[in-house]
């Protein structure tokens, strides 16, 4: 009961002090707002870049053509050999009949030509998905060396450079996001430190009249939480409305149909959640660290 009373008073005092020290609270809130908007933009960009590169990478596969007139047992042997490789995600068999049907569907002239021939000239094949696209070349090389394999194709040359570019982009994006989050944390906690610095005499008096350290800390932690949460409101609105509107204006993709944007729901809510948690946690930790400084003798 006593603890609850102290907590209730802390919440009351926190609200009071946000209002009574409004100019300082306002500075903290604005600082939080601006940095969280930056974090939000970078998160939106990062997630989309990641999505595009992922979807392109997912399209990448190795096509393995088997030698003509290969028998069932050899096909099984080759399959199990390929499957034993670490980097292989999935192996799909595609028979020459399937190829023929697919090509016939694609174009009537193919159909005419293929029907004209007595024998199906196409080859049985495997389509491989790899786990790590950066090692696609090595895997292709190995598969080529299996006996019974005729040709291995994966878009050599172009694929490697795309993958290299993507991995650089992804790393840069991650670094930028992390750096921004750290800067945000630092900025917010520093602004809160300033507001608390102006109230160090109040902290001193609290100690002198016999407030326990925890009773001194709670109002400040609640206040930091409030500042963080209030500061997150505008960035969250910008995230949700901004992204939904831009998504519908751009029809869900940029430049070409290949660069598909992430669907706004529930994506914007995840980003908003991150912003809210980031604001609240950084606010609380920032003010906790600031108060602690004045609780030592």
């Amino acid at each position, binding site marked *: 009961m006593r603890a609850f009373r102290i907590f209730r008073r802390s919440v009351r005092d926190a609200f009071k002090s946000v209002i*009574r020290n409004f100019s300082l609270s306002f500075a903290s809130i604005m600082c939080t707002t601006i940095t969280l908007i930056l974090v939000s933009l970078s998160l939106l960009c990062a997630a989309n870049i990641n999505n595009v590169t992922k979807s392109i990478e997912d399209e990448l596969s190795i096509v393995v053509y088997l030698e003509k007139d290969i028998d069932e047992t050899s096909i099984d042997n080759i399959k199990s050999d390929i499957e034993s490789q670490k980097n292989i995600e999935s192996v799909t068999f595609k028979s020459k009949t399937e190829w023929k049907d697919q090509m016939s569907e694609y174009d009537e002239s193919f159909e005419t030509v293929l029907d004209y021939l007595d024998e199906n000239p196409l080859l049985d094949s495997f389509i491989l998905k790899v786990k790590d696209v950066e090692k696609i070349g090595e895997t292709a090389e190995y598969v080529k060396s299996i006996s019974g394999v005729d040709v291995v194709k994966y878009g050599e040359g172009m694929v490697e450079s795309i993958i290299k570019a993507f991995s650089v982009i992804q790393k840069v994006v991650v670094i930028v996001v992390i750096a921004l989050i750290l800067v945000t944390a630092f900025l917010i906690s520093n602004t809160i430190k300033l507001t608390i610095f102006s109230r160090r005499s109040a902290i001193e008096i609290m100690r002198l*009249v016999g*407030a326990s*350290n925890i*009773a001194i800390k709670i109002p400040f932690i609640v206040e930091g939480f409030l500042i963080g949460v209030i500061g997150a409101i505008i960035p969250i609105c910008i995230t949700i409305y901004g992204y939904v509107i831009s998504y519908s204006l751009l029809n869900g993709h940029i430049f070409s149909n290949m660069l598909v944007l992430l669907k706004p729901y529930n994506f914007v809510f995840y980003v908003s959640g991150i912003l809210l948690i980031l604001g609240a946690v950084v606010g609380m930790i920032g003010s906790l660290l600031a108060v602690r400084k004045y609780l030592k*003798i």
Partner: protein
Amino acid sequence: MKFIELKNVNKVYKNGVTALADVSISIDKGEFVFVIGLTASGKSTFIKMLYREEKPTKGTVMVGGLNVGKIRNRKVYKLRRKIGIVFQDFKLLPKLTVYENVAFALECVGMKDKDIRPKVINALERVGLKDKVRSFPGELSGGEQQRVCIARAIVNEPKLLICDEPTGNLDPKTSKEIMNVIEGINSDLGTTIIMATHDKDIVNRMKKRVLLIEHGVLAGDFAKGSYKTNESV
């Protein structure tokens, strides 16, 4: 055991200055003691040690059965709740009203609102400020602010009231009124009072036990009424 007991207390600050050297003092419950001495004599260090703003380097300081030097930082509040402190510069919270300032000391302890109210009114009545409850400290005179500070110090009925030059910023007439309030607390409530002061008139007039601290040592311990000086102390 005595209420307050210092045994061979030494205090050396980090910069090498010795503030107190081998000081031993004992004070009974309900006593009224003046602590006098020049600026930088170690008087303030002695006072601060009683409420653990400073820790002794050597020796023990016992206050009401608590070994002050051994109290951990997190537990200091337990000591502070047993003593009231009055400061020269009042240390009131400017954004709280008189009532809120006094109630603050009880809220910190987690007391119920309905228990706080009569105690605060009672304390403000004792210092004669019942009609100023809604004022803010900035609207009060120095003497009135000091009364608020005293009310805050006594509101949780401490056994010990420490006054660190409470009249230092006040004119003689107001000082006299403040001293009457403090003496009343001592005689009516039986609160032990330790008061550091520079004011020789007060010391001469009130005829209480006097501790003289000079250059960090206890230069004299004068029993009730045996100390009189014309020098500025």
